[in-house]
Structures are given as C-alpha cells and as structure tokens.
C-alpha cells in the first residue's frame, strides 16, 4: 500500500538513507540480473505438480466415499424436490400473499408491499418457475450451512485450538472461487441440483461461523460470570446465557449467510444443469439477448433485496416478545391464504398464471438498449480504447511492450526510456527531500511496474516487494505469509495468469478506491447527500449478488478485459464509499473542534486532520475492495476476461479438477496475501493513532 503516506503523522526525524540505499540497490540488482537472464522467466508449467496430485487424491477419495456422498445427495434431494413442487404448485395469488405476509411479520406494511411487488413482478414476467427453483435451492442450502456453522462455531468457541485451525480454513472457503471446487463436488455428489446446494452452502458457512464465535466471545465477562455464579452448568450457560446474549450478532451472521447463499446459488447452478433464475440470466447474456438478461437479472436483484430486508427485519425484532397484533395478523393471513387457494380451484386463471397475461418487456428493452449503444458508442468506445491502451495494457505488459507509434505516437526508444527514468528519479528525489521516503519508494516500485508490466516484471522482484512490504507493515509473520503465498503461485505454474488477474484487480481497486473514497468523503461532509443518495444506493448495491454486476458491464462494453474492469469497479466500489464515510465521520469531534479553533480552512481540515485519522478505516475499505475485486475477476471470466478465472473455467470444461483447484487456490493466495498486508497496516496505524 505504497500510495498511503504512512509516515505522515510522525515528525519527520530524518530519512533512513542507508536502509533506503540498500533497498534500492537490491531492487536494481534483481532487475539487472533479470535483464541479464540470470533470474529467468516464471515457469509456465508447474514445478510442483500439485494439480496432478490433487486430481489423483480426489479421484481416490471419490472412489472410496462416492457411495456416502451419493446417499447424502439423495437425502438432500428429497426436501429440495418437496420445496420446489410445493412452491411451483401454489396458486400465484397465494405466493404473492404469502410473501406479503412474511414481509408484514418481518417489517410491517412497507416491507409487505415490497415483498408483494417482488413476487408480483416475478409472476407477471413469467419467471416464477425458475425463481421457485432458486428459492428451493436456498431453502436447502442455507439451513445446511447454518447447521454446520453452528456445530463448527460452538466447537471453535469451546476449544481454542479448533478455532486456530478453523480460521485459515474459513479464509480459504471465502476466498477460493466456488467455480474452482465445483468439479470435486460434481464428482462426489453427481450431476444435479445438489452441486449448487453444496457449493453455495460451503461458501455461506464462514460468515455464520465468524458471527457465532465473535458473538459468543464478546458476551461481557460479567454476564458469563453471573451465569456461572447462578450455578449454570455448561449446557445451561450456552443455551440460556451465551447464545441469547450473542443473538443480535448471530442473526447478523445469518443475514450474511443467506445473502452469500443466494449469491452463489445463481452461479453454481450453471454446472448442475438446474434451470433456475441464474441460468436464465447467463444463457440470455451469452446469446446477447440483453433485454431478457435485464428482466431476469432484476428478479435476482429484487429477491436479494427482499431476502435481505426480511431477514434483517426478523433479526431486529428478535428481542421483543410476540405482540398480540402479530398473532391476529398471522390468523388473518392464514384465512386469506386458504381462501386464495380455494378460489384458485374455482378459477383456473388464478391457479397458474395464464401465458397470455405475461408481460414481456425484453424486446422493448432490447430496442432501447440498441439505441443507447449506438448513441453512446463514441463515448463508450473511446473510454474502452483509451483505458485499454493507456492503462491496462501498459500495466500488464509494460510500457516497453505497449508503447507503439500507432497508438502512442512515439516509440519506446532508448531516449524515451531515458526520459522516463529521469522523470521517475526526479520524482523520487523530490519526495526524499520532502522526507517522505515511503512515498519515494512507492513511486519507484510503481514506475518499475508501469515499465515492465505485472507480467513482464521479474517474478523475483514481485515476490521481494510483497515480502518486504509484508515484513515492513506486519513483521515476520506477514512477510512469511506473503512469501509462501507468492511461492505457491510460482511453483504451481500459475504465475502469468495470476499477474494478469493482479493487473485487473489493481486497476479496478485503484479506480474504485479513488471514486469510492471521494464519494464517501462527500457523503461524510454532507448529511443530506449521505441520507438521500449515497446510503440507499450503497445498501442496494451491497445486497446484489455478484452476478448481477456483469449484466450492465457486458451490455455496454461487450466481452473483454475492459468489461471485467467495469464490473470490478461497480462491484468493489461500495466498501471504499462506506469506510470512507465511516472513517471521516468517526474522527473525534473534539479534534475537529480543536482544529476549527485554530482557524483551519475546510481543505486543511480534510487533508491535515480528517484524512490522516480516517486512513486506517479507509484501508479496511480498500481491503474489502481487493477481496471483492478478486472474486469478480473470476466471475468476469465467464464473459471472457483473461487470468486465473479463465484457468478455472478451462479446467472446469476439461473436467480437470486438480487444475481448477490449483488456479482457485492461487486466487485465494493472492487474496490472503493482500488481506494480511492491508489489515496489519491498518491495525498498526490504528494502534499508533491510539484509536
């Protein structure tokens, strides 16, 4: 995180010249050695044939335990089919009424209206059948995750060693793309809807486990002690004291689990051959029938918002006792529900939504979209071209490869190279003289990457930089994580793909952080902007399944790397906004008052008081943006973005489960390396600031 002036607050006591010279010398040595061919290119095939080993181990495992898993699959298929049949055979007015009743119980009349609208939209657009499949999948996957998470969470709370073991595993479960472990699941559970259920259940477990353990750990010691002094035994303490006290946190975890489940179900079902709403979007998108994609994508978006609000509504109400009014409402809803079923038996049009009533806005949307594409083409194509040639390409392959007279109007002649080097050196010197030596280092490293590209930069240099940064911000442990993570990628032969993914991620994160922080700061300084515009939009974007973000990006920019970039920025912009606003707003009021009493201007206040204090919080937003960007990079490969995601997809289509897992693990490695570095920087900074 070189772009953050981490030394800003300390009195500049001098520049560690000797150490800087050592670092710069080391860097030049590595670059020189690479130029001379002594380091060599990153291996394109695996030095450690981990993929083969994994494939062999998996097939051995599957051969032995296939029976068990197939039985489990049959067992889980039963409730799934029950749900699906029940949902699909309910008369449509009953469905809408049912949704409205649940909404009413969770959050009153407004939420009831919203739920009714969602399901009415689904019915009227004729998408009830695939949506019912999605709902049935979630209805099985989420309870499955919750049960497993409860067992894991309680065990982790009880035995600290289990928790230590579980934490890296949870990190892995959350960062490894679902698509990477679809094949092993397929091998174990067989083709069918179970693949989607199991895959999304795995993805949805971590938030619930974390919420449970953190909730239990944070129960005030006095409450635990008072429970013990009352003479509770272990079970009583857990069931009557700990879990109820931690309930608000646990329910928040449940909400996250539901959202994660939904987000993954619509992706994972692509492989299982289940015709749910995700397939509807994906296939129409592939056929470039974007009107259809929007109509179906809106179903996912509306379902997400509904489920989020309903689960939050129930979570918020958990502390109140059952009100008499709600009991009456339940009875009323039951009566209306039964009446609607009875009515449906009499009037067939109320039973199954008649085909001729279906509203099909897709063709109109297509027409509108066509018009928009034509009109906006000069802008969008310029945007795409310029970003691709001047930002993405140089960062990937380096200025040395990307600068061509045809695009840039100049050639990367020795003279130009010389000018580039001099300019960078001058910049570094400027920062050094201003005693901002961290900024000088950052500029130097950035210049190297812009010249060689992430792919073209010698692998030794990248590993050295990440390890050094890790050691600098987080000590030996973080340095070790960085080193091992990057070595894993190198040795398993995924280096080049990883560097391509890293490039899109870096640009995407940089853009979303710049834009997002600006919006966040604006919202922090302006209550009305925050309440009316920024927060509602963030709330909505945050609940959207990752898949939905692809639709507008592909619609406007078609397939390719730039599309992935747009999707990344759209998806990853929420955390920088959120944390930016939070960071600025959390600056202690006394501090800003003190500054105001000294007579600072608004700009001085922002740059010299609020931003430095908010930086650790903003860094956490950056961290989340990195995680989200990495997961989007994989999803974006579905529409043609290169990199590790593509490796995962190729392995998936070739049935090479080991290869897919290795590529997926490489993404995890990248995610965990950056996570540890940014988190420890933020924690260290917060500690230094006494926050």
């Amino acid at each position, binding site marked *: 995180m070189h772009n953050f002036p981490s030394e800003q607050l300390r009195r500049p006591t001098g520049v560690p010249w000797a150490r800087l010279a050592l670092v710069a010398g080391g860097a030049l040595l590595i670059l020189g050695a690479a130029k001379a061919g002594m380091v060599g290119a990153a291996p394109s095939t695996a030095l450690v044939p981990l993929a083969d080993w994994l494939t062999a181990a998996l097939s051995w495992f599957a051969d032995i335990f296939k029976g068990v898993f197939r039985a489990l699959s049959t067992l889980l298929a039963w409730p799934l089919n029950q749900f699906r049949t029940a949902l699909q055979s309910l008369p449509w007015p009953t469905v809408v009424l049912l949704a409205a009743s649940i909404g009413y119980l969770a959050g009153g009349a407004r939420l009831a209206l919203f739920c009714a609208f969602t399901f009415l939209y689904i019915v009227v657009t004729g998408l009830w059948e695939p949506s019912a499949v999605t709902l049935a999948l979630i209805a099985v996957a989420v309870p499955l995750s919750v049960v497993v998470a409860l067992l894991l969470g309680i065990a982790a709370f009880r035995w600290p060693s289990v928790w230590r073991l579980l934490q890296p595993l949870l990190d892995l479960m959350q960062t490894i793309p679902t698509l990477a472990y679809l094949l092993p699941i397929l091998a174990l559970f067989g083709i069918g809807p179970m693949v989607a259920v199991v895959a999304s259940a795995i993805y949805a477990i971590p938030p619930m486990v974390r919420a449970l353990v953190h909730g239990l750990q944070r129960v*005030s010691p*006095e*409450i635990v*002690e*008072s*429970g*013990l*002094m*009352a*003479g*509770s*035994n272990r079970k*009583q303490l857990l069931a*009557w*004291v700990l879990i*109820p*006290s931690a*309930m608000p946190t646990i329910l928040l975890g449940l909400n996250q689990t539901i959202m994660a489940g939904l987000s993954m179900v619509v992706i994972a079902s692509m492989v299982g051959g289940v015709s749910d709403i995700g397939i509807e979007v994906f296939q129409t998108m592939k056929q470039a029938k974007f009107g259809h994609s929007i109509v179906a994508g809106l179903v996912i978006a509306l379902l997400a918002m509904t489920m989020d609000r309903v689960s939050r509504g129930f979570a918020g109400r958990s*502390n109140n006792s059952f009100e008499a009014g709600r009991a009456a409402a339940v009875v009323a809803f039951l009566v209306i529900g039964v009446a609607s079923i009875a009515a449906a038996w009499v009037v067939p049009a109320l039973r199954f939504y008649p085909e001729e009533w279906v509203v099909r806005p897709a063709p109109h949307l297509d027409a509108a979209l066509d018009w928009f594409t034509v009109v906006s083409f000069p802008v969008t194509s310029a945007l795409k071209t310029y970003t691709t040639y001047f930002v993405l390409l140089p960062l990937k392959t380096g200025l040395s490869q990307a600068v061509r007279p045809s695009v840039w109007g100049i050639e990367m002649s020795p003279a130009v190279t010389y000018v580039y080097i001099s300019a960078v050196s001058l910049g570094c010197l400027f920062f050094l003289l201003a005693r901002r030596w961290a900024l000088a280092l950052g500029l130097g490293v950035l210049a190297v990457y812009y010249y060689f590209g992430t792919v073209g930069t010698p692998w030794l240099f990248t590993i050295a930089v990440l390890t050094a940064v890790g050691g600098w911000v987080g000590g030996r442990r973080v340095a070790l994580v960085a080193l091992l993570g990057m070595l894993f990628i190198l040795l398993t032969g995924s280096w080049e793909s990883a560097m391509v993914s890293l490039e899109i991620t870096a640009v995407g994160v940089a853009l979303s952080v710049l834009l997002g922080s600006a919006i966040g700061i604006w919202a922090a300084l302006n209550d009305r902007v925050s309440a009316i515009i920024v927060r509602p939009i963030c709330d909505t974007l945050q609940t959207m399944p990752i898949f939905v973000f692809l639709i507008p990006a592909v619609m406007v920019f078609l397939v390719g790397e730039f599309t992935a970039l747009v999707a990344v920025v759209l998806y990853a912009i929420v955390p920088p906004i959120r944390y930016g606003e939070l960071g600025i707003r959390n600056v202690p009021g006394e501090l800003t008052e003190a500054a105001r009493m000294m007579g600072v201007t608004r700009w001085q206040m922002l740059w010299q008081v609020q931003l430095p204090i908010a930086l650790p919080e903003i860094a956490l937003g950056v961290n989340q943006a990195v995680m989200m960007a990495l997961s989007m990079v994989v999803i974006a490969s579905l529409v043609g973005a290169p990199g590790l995601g593509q490796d995962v997809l190729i392995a998936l289509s070739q049935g090479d489960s080991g290869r897919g897992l290795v590529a997926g693990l490489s993404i995890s490695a990248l995610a965990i390396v950056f996570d540890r570095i940014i988190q420890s920087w933020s924690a260290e900074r917060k500690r230094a600031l006494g926050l």
Partner: protein
Amino acid sequence: MSSEPRISCRHLWKVFCADAADTLEAARRAATGDTGAVARVMREQGCVPAACDVSFDVHPGEIFVIMGLSGSGKSTVVRCLSRLVEPTAGEVLIDGQNILKLSESELIELRRHRMGMVFQNFGLMPHMTVLENVAYPLRVQSVGRAERIDRAIETIEMVGLAGRENSYPRELSGGMQQRVGIARSLAVKPDVWFLDEPFSALDPLIRRQMQDEFLRLQALLQKSIVFITHDFLEALRLADRIAIMRGGQVVQIGTAAELVLNPADSYVADFTREVPREKIITARDILEPVVGAVDAGDNVSEDETLDVLLQRFCGRREPLQIMNQSGVIIGRVTLDGALGALRRTS
C-alpha cells in the same frame, strides 16, 4: 469474634502465566521467605502475580471489605473465593470445606445454593426481563415455574423494585439495574454474599442511597459478606473489617479505627489522611484500661465516637470514665489522649 469463620482464605496465590503452578514453585525456591520477593521473581519472568499469599477469615454476619486501587488484585481474590478464577495455590474453606477440592458438579451445587454475587457493571442478561433475570438462578436448579416466579417476586419486592418485573434491563437506570443484580444474587437465599465493586458504576448520590440500602438489607439478612471497593470512604462506611491490598498482597487487615490509628505503612496512612478521624475513632479504641475504678456517675459508652468525647471535655479537664454495654467501667480517656488521637500519624 469467637465463632468459626464462614469463609477462610489461606495463603491464596493466583499467578497469570503459562505453567503458573510450576513457576510459583520455582519462584518460592529461588526467593527466600518474603512474599514480595517471590512476586518480584515471577514478574521478572513475565508472569502476573495477581494475588500473593492472601489470608483472611470472614465470620458469619460480618461485612469484610477488600479495598485496593485498580490492579491491586482485589477482584481476582473475590473470584478465587468462588472459583470463577482458579487459584494457583492455597486453600479456600467455606464452613471448613476446601472448595478448591470440589469437582465441577459439586462446585455448581455450591454456587446454586450457598453463594450470591453482585457485579460492578451489573452483569444482567440483556435478553431477559427483570423477573427472568432474578428467577434465573432458580431456573438453572429446575425449580418449578410457579414457585420460582413467587420467590423472584418476593426478592424483587425486598429490593424495592415492585412493579418493574416485566421491564428489560436496558429500560432501567443504573441504580435500578444494580437493585436487579442484588435481587438476583439473593434469590436463592445464599449465606455467602460476594459484591464486586457493586456501586462503583453509579453516580455519587445514588451510590450513597445504595449503600444505605445495602446496610438495611444486611441488618435484615445477616449474610457473610466479602465486599470489594476502591473507595476508602465506602469501605469505612460499610465494613466491620477492612483488608487493604496493594500489588496482589494484603497490606493490613483491621477495623476502620485500627487502620486510622495504626496504619501499617505509609501506603495505608495515605488513605487515612483525608479521613474524618473524629467520626471513626471510638472510645473503645483509645481508652486506657483502669482496674477497680469508682463510678462517678457520668460514664460514657465505649461506642461513642471521638467528636462526642471532645464535646464532653468542654469545660472539664478530668478524664472521662468509659463503660461497656453492660455498664461496667472498663477504662478512661484523658483530654490529652483524645487530642492525641485526633493528630495524624505521619
């Protein structure tokens, strides 16, 4: 006090570190004799000796206050008495039974029937109403629903919270929340009562009210009490006897007047400096024993405080005769003696 102690804490040690017991053993061998030296050895090894060789007795019906500043180990000691914190070495006897030898289920039985505890920040369950909180100790023992509601309501009325049974803790003021905490700790009618800084989180005025309330309840219930506080004046108001702790060690144990008149060291003396001595020292503490004195008729009770004695000296120089509860003259106080007790020992 002639009766058997209800609680007896003998040579109690609590050391926070890995392998605490072994470290303590080694430290005891390395440092000879002095408790402070043993503690120092362990601190040098990065351990935290929170309670060092703590010994005291609490008699039935007595209010025993442990007073110390934060980090002095007083909360650790009270938690060792109930094994919320597992002691490293020593003995804790309750009615002669060493509770450190109890199995987990025996310990749970002990807590269910014989102990109650009040916490600084109340420790109320946020998800339970006042009634449910107070009834919780009964619920864990599987007392029937009707009975536990009856008993809980009875206790709630005793602490003056009738009418708030169905409120949640967050709807109550701090003082009221602590009344709930007190009611809960008394719901099973325990004979041993621990209070860990029960009034420290309250405003001064409320604190004063709660102290009076506490004394009223104790006059009624006659529990054996270990009361933790960091407030010396609170200790003086409430205690039968006070133990002063510092750095895990007990510096001095005694009645309020004993501490004021004969502080063991300058640390204790510092606390007593701002104390209104004339209101704490009684005739009993400063009398000179006399054998076979003649009853002059204007005797003073041994319970009278120094300020009363000084009033009696207005316009007289001859000593006051002091009698005990049964009217027998046991000694005398001279004017010089009374004035001497007023002067601070430095």
